[in-house]
């Protein structure tokens, strides 16, 4: 009967060669057992329908697992990734930063060079991540299938078995909303970044031009560096306050009402200094303004609108962050 043969074929073609013949023979005899002496095609169809999808049947004959990383090695897999991925990323960043800095000839503008290097680093980090993930997954999938122990026990994770004594080392955080150390470090990095930009604005911020199709070159600064630097007492005060805030955050470890208040006050002061500086007409390099209005036909109202949007954006972000911080401080 053609249908029976087709069904048997559909099952066995999905199975390893050596077991095919035996399973085919058994299946055939089983299907015929289900039928009466003089069976009709409908009867065959009913019997095969009872056996179900041949792909499903073949899958249950196969002992091979239907997953890539099984529960036996999953723990070790995740642990290994957590240990290696940050290092892989760090090493990639360091290597490509060094290569990039060594290759800096000084012909290009600094900002253009920095942006290009960032691009290279990000691309390489993504590539390394894919390599690491791919190879670890392959290796662990193989380990899972080879199964050295035959016990079905999860692979040892290298840690001693848990005991109640371990609890003595656990520190219960008094508040739910802890400040991650990373958050504090990020704050410090941000302060450092704008400090560098502030003191080097005369060759970082301004107009860039592509010269003869080559890299971008710095043409003229946006600010009058003298006027900009004349604000140094206020800026230094802000740097000091932000640094103190980072240290305070790191030490406190969680949000308190006092910390949230200090955070908000410093942000308001920072925004105030920024707005005062930005509204100083002497701050801007007249040559830059002239070339800017030459290259782009901008009505005066556009600049006014831009100004309003920046003020509103700063105000809204300060309010949202303050609200969030106070909420975290109140919540136990």
């Amino acid at each position: 009967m053609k249908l029976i043969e087709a069904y048997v074929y559909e099952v066995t073609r999905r199975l390893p060669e050596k077991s095919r013949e035996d399973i085919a023979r058994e299946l055939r005899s089983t299907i015929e057992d289900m039928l009466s002496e003089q069976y009709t095609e409908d009867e065959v169809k009913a019997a095969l329908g009872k056996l179900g999808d041949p792909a499903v049947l073949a899958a249950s004959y196969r002992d091979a697992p239907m997953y890539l990383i099984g529960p036996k090695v999953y723990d070790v897999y995740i642990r290994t990734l957590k240990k290696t991925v940050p290092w892989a990323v760090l090493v990639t960043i360091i290597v490509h930063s060094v290569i990039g800095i060594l290759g800096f000839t000084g012909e290009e503008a600094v900002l253009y060079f920095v942006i290009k290097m960032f691009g290279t680093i990000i691309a390489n980090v993504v590539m390394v991540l894919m390599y690491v993930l791919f190879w670890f997954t392959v290796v662990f999938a193989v380990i899972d299938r080879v199964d050295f122990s035959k016990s079905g026990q999860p692979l040892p994770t290298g840690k001693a078995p848990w005991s109640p004594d371990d609890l003595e080392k656990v520190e219960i955080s008094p508040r739910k909303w802890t400040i991650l150390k990373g958050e504090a470090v990020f704050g410090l990095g941000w302060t450092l970044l704008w400090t560098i930009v502030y003191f080097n604005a005369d060759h970082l911020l301004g107009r860039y031009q592509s010269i003869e199709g080559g890299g971008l070159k710095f043409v003229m600064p946006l600010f009058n560096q003298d006027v900009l630097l004349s604000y140094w007492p206020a800026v230094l005060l802000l740097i000091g306050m932000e640094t103190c805030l980072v240290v305070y955050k790191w030490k406190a470890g969680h949000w308190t009402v006092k910390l949230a208040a200090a955070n908000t006050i410093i942000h308001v002061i920072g925004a105030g200094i920024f707005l005062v500086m930005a509204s100083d007409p002497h701050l801007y390099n007249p040559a830059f303004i002239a070339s800017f209005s030459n290259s782009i036909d901008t009505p005066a109202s556009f600049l006014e609108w831009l100004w309003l949007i920046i003020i509103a954006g700063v105000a809204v972000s300060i309010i949202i962050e303050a609200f969030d911080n106070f909420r975290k401080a109140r919540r136990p």
Partner: protein
Amino acid sequence: MKSITVSHTVSKRGEGWMSSLLESFMTELRRGTLTLAVLSQLSTPQYGYSLVQRLEEAGVAIEQSTLYPLLRRLEKQGLVTSSWDTTESRPRKYYVLSDYGMEVYQELKQEWHKMTLELTTLLKGEDNHEAD
């Protein structure tokens, strides 16, 4: 009475959700007893379809697509042995418990008796609470 009202409100909330959850619990429950049910019928040699019929007669519903692979797995684990009988018009593969399989079956049977006893006690206790 209490349990009826509870299930009524649940079914109002979403019958499909309820029944699919129930089904997955039942499948899990049945899967655990499957090996024992099959082993219990293999003291005498059986071929695939005769085993299906015996189990069905006893009210044990088992998918054939589950049973045949299970038999092969039991053979691989050394619990049953198989042999082809070609004397009749249709060749059939017979499975029967090995000595090792018999041992495992006896152990499992004892465990089952112990478990049912424990659960019967638990469930009876629950009934008494409801009657209060």
